[in-house]
C-alpha cells in the first residue's frame, strides 16, 4: 500500500521510511507541506499519510485542511506526527481534518497498529463506495441486459431533446422491437429468450458510437438515441443496426436462432417536438407501420404537411358529393 511521509527532519523521515518499507509499504517521502499536498492531490496518490505538524511551506494541520477540501476524492487517512502533546494541540489537529495523531518519538509497534487501523478504515470506505456504485448501477440499468433501464432512457431522451432544441441540433431516435419474440419464449422458454435479449443488447451497443445511448424500453423493445445525427443519416444508421441484428443467428443453448428487428425512426430535425413522450409516440407509430409492412424493416416517422391533409380532406369531400 502507498503511504506518504512528510517531515522536514531528514533523520526522522529516513527512519520512518525504512521502518515502513520493512513492513511492505510503498513509501513516498517529502520534506515540506506543499510537496505533501501535491503528492496527496495526484490522481493515484497515497491514501495513507504521516504528516509532521511543524513543517516549512505548510504545516501538517494546513495539509489536512487542504486535503479535506477535496471532497470528490477518495478518503485519505491522515495521521499527524507531533511532539506537541497538549490536549489543545490534539484537538486542533483533529479539527483540521487529521484522522489520528502520534506523538514523537513514536513507538514502532504503536505506529504499525495505528496504520493498520487506517488501512481498515480505508478498506471499509472502499467497500462502501463499491456498494454504493453497485446500487447506483442497479437503479439505472436493466438487470438482464445491463443497458440503461426505461426510467433512465426516458431521462436521457428528455435531456437530449432539450439540448438539441437549445443548440438547434439534430437527434435521431430509433425505437426497435424484436420480431416474433413471443414465439421464442413460448417455444424455447424464458431462459433462451433472455439469452436472445442479452445478445441483441450487445449487438445494439456494438452498432452505436460511444456517446450514443441504448436503453431497454420494454420487454423486447429497445430505444437508441443518436446524438448529433442529421436526419439525412437517420434511416441509413437504423438500417445498419437492423442488418447487424439480422446478419447472423443468435447462439443459444437451444442452438442458433435467427432474429430480426423492426424499427421506427424519428429525426428531431424533421419535427417540432419538445417532449420525449411526443417523440416516442411518433417513433412508435412508425414502428407499428414497419410491423404492418412485414417486419424486419425501418420506417421513418414523417410529419404530415398541413397542405397534404387539406388536399386529402378536399378529395374525400369531393368523392362523397353525388
Amino acid at each position, binding site marked *: 500500500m502507498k503511504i506518504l511521509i512528510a517531515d522536514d527532519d531528514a533523520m526522522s523521515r529516513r527512519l520512518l521510511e525504512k521502518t515502513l518499507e520493512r513492513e511492505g509499504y510503498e513509501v513516498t517521502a517529502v520534506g515540506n507541506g506543499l510537496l505533501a499536498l501535491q503528492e496527496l492531490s495526484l490522481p493515484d496518490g497515497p491514501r495513507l499519510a504521516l504528516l509532521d505538524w511543524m513543517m516549512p511551506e505548510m504545516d501538517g494541520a494546513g495539509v489536512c485542511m487542504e486535503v479535506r477540501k477535496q471532497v470528490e476524492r477518495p478518503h485519505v487517512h491522515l495521521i499527524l506526527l507531533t511532539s506537541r502533546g497538549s490536549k489543545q494541540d490534539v484537538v486542533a489537529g483533529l479539527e483540521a481534518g487529521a484522522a489520528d495523531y502520534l506523538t*514523537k518519538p513514536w513507538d514502532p509497534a504503536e505506529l504499525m497498529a495505528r496504520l493498520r487501523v487506517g488501512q481498515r478504515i480505508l478498506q471499509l470506505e472502499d467497500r462502501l463506495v463499491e456498494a454504493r456504485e453497485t446500487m447506483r448501477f442497479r437503479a439505472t440499468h436493466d438487470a438482464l441486459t445491463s443497458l440503461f433501464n426505461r426510467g433512465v432512457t426516458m431521462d436521457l431522451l428528455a435531456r437530449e431533446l432539450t439540448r438539441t432544441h437549445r443548440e438547434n441540433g439534430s437527434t435521431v431516435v430509433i425505437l426497435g422491437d424484436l420480431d416474433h419474440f413471443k414465439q421464442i419464449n413460448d417455444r424455447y422458454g424464458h431462459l433462451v429468450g433472455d439469452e436472445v435479449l442479452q445478445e441483441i443488447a450487445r449487438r445494439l451497443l456494438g452498432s452505436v458510437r460511444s456517446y450514443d445511448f441504448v436503453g431497454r424500453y420494454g420487454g423486447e423493445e429497445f430505444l437508441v438515441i443518436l446524438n448529433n445525427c442529421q436526419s439525412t443519416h437517420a434511416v441509413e444508421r437504423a438500417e445498419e443496426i437492423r442488418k447487424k441484428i439480422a446478419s447472423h443467428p443468435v447462439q443459444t443453448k437451444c442452438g442458433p436462432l435467427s432474429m430480426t428487428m423492426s424499427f421506427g425512426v424519428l429525426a428531431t430535425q424533421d419535427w417540432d417536438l419538445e417532449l420525449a413522450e411526443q417523440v416516442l409516440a411518433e417513433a412508435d407509430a412508425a414502428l407499428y407501420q414497419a410491423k404492418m409492412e412485414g417486419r424486419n424493416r425501418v420506417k421513418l416517422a414523417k410529419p404530415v404537411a398541413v397542405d397534404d391533409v387539406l388536399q386529402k380532406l378536399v378529395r374525400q369531400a369531393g368523392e362523397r358529393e353525388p
Partner: protein
Amino acid sequence: MTEQHDGAPQVAVNLNELLVRVDNDHDLLCELIGIFKEEFPRLQQELRQAVAREDVKKVETTGHALKGMLLGLSVTRAAASAARLEQMAREGTIAGLTDALILFDAEVKGLLAELVGYATEIEP
C-alpha cells in the same frame, strides 16, 4: 557519553530504546548518525545565532527541530533542553534564553562522539 557538570561521564543516549526504534538495523543506525552529524552542527549554530539576535521565532523553530532530532535518537535529556528553549521562545521569554542555551550546549557536548562510538561498537 557526555560529561556531567561535576565532570563524571554520563550516558546521553538510551541505547536500548534506539535499537528498538531502528529494529537492530546497524546500517540504518549508521545512516541516521550520518544524517545527525551533518544536520546537528548546522542547527546548533543556527540556534546560537538566533539566541544572540533574540530572534524568538527562529529559536522556536530551531529548538523544535533539534528536539525532534534528539528524541529520534533517544537523547532525552538534551531533547528536554531543546524543548525548554522552544517553549521559552514560543512564550516570547527572552530573559533566560542564553542560560537555557548554555545548558543545552552542555547536554550535547560529546554527544556526536558517543553516537559514533555506538555505531562502531554495535557493528555486527
